[in-house]
């Protein structure tokens, strides 16, 4: 039977690949942003998986716990702390991106990335 850790790693890999595909090859700007979110969440899942311990306990030492048993079974807390920070950063960048998309949609009336994100040189050539 496939282990939880392996399943999580495979899922994170799939999320990153799907996200990269969407971010690089899809033209709709919302789909690109969803793809970017997939990449971020895939990486977060990967890091959380690193801290996973089969039959482990939450790394918080509570009264009544036996010290040796806690040391043996507690999961590694660092990845969870890192992911918590990463989620906050991801949420804030996502909010800024969505705000920019709203402004650009109001300005240009399109969600096509190839039209919105044209280079200045391409713009000049088009004119």
């Amino acid at each position, binding site marked *: 039977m496939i282990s939880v850790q392996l399943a999580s790693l495979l899922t994170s890999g799939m999320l990153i690949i799907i996200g990269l595909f969407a971010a690089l090859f899809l033209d709709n700007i919302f789909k690109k942003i969803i793809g970017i979110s997939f990449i971020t969440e895939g990486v977060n899942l990967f890091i959380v998986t690193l801290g996973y311990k089969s039959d482990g306990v939450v790394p918080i030492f509570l009264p009544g716990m036996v010290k040796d048993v806690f040391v043996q079974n507690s999961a590694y807390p660092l*990845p969870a702390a890192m992911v918590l920070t990463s989620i906050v950063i991801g949420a804030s960048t996502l909010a800024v991106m969505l705000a*920019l998309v709203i402004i650009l949609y109001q300005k240009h009336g399109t969600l096509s990335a190839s039209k919105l994100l044209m280079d200045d040189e391409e713009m000049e050539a088009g004119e």
Partner: protein
Amino acid sequence: MDSFIPLLVIVPIFCAILLNLCHGKDKLVKLLALIFGITLPITPIFVNYGNHFFGGYSPLFLNSSWATNLPSTITNSILFNFHPAITYVFGGMQQIFIFILGILTFFVIFTSLNESKRASGVYTFLIFMGTAAVTAVFLTDDIFHLYIFFEISVMTQVGIILCSNIQRKHETALKYMFLSNIAAPMLLLGIGLLLGLTGNVNISDIIIAIKTGVVTPDNPVLLMAAALILFGWLYGSGLPPFHSIKSAMYSKATPHAAAILQVFTVFIFVSLGIVIIRIFAFISLLRWIIMIISALAMILGISMAITQHDFKRMIGYLAVGELGYVGLGLAIGTIQSITACLFQAVNEILLTGLLFIGVGTILYKTGTTDTNKLGGMLTENPFVAFIFLLTGFAMAGVPPFNAFQSKLLLIQSALNAGFPELGVLMIILSIVTFMTFVKVFYTVYLKPQPENMKIINKKIPQVTVISMVLLLIVCIMLGLFPNIVTNAFSQFAMGLL
């Protein structure tokens, strides 16, 4: 341990928050921004060298009271060197860089407040926040901490572009954010792989784990981590293939904002570059890749600069090209080359900042930076033209300016390390840089004034001219007395290798 080291980050964050709260009260923002701006170059002078361990959790080998009576299983293991807390390292090299950052930030705030009628609390907040972020990136010995402040600096850079009144700023900001949100998770994935291999995110601990054989150097996961962190580095510093987006960013910002943006870029470039060299120095392939990309950045940046007709974009490309010199120094990897690359980085910060402030004077007077629409500016302000000409000479590596010393040192280090072709490339590209400046100086200052060119403002603010003169004096001082900085840099390079 020095408990004042975090002040280097805390002070600008505090100033940023206060300025943001004062947004809308113009006079108060101006006054506070100037007072806070002065604190930035002063703070690093008064902070002592040393390490700061957050929470006071120092490694066991530095804490004699804890280390006594420990079993040999701990004292003989890597646990003895393990850093249990986020660590800030502050030495001579960091002091020079943070001091230069403080000077540039102060001059940028100084000129921007004088050139604009209204003082934006949000804009000054972003400048101070960005300064705090890149300072933390430079000080930290924790790679995840570095990632967090890297992301904060990206956000502030996007904010600074959005604060400018330039066309298509939203498009450029979104494009930059797209790339950022692909490159930053890749950097985080690389950090995650290092965490999985070594159980650590402290850079010194990771190095110890590799050197003591906890992780074998030829581990493919380590190579994958190196590739991902390199990708993040290329994006953060605007090296190829991200060079055009970086120069587009500079062109979409006001000149003083562009000056500070390029300082942030150089800081990210140097700090992440040093991390890569520290952790992955044993991978010769990686050094070759850095060398090739840096040479490519020099060739693409400088050759594309000569074809630009937008002044800001031209300087943006030149800044990318100059970063290539710094990258080459890192890739050669000798004490002399790393000293030279750090010196070149300081010079680039000063000279590109000075050039962007110089472009600001032209924009202020004419309302455009398009060289096709400009001409005859020499008669308008000959003194600024003279400073601009000297700055161009300095960037091209003409003596007695600072870039001459750093480029000479870089060429010598390339020759000593057995890369004469790199030395030749650097000389050729310095000549091309010189040609670019001669061309642009003729177009803007010497060519007859076009009939449709309008002079919006007659007089350039004295503050801007004073800032330019002072920055040029710093450049000449560094050119005449390079030992002011090179001694600290060579000591750092010796420690690094």
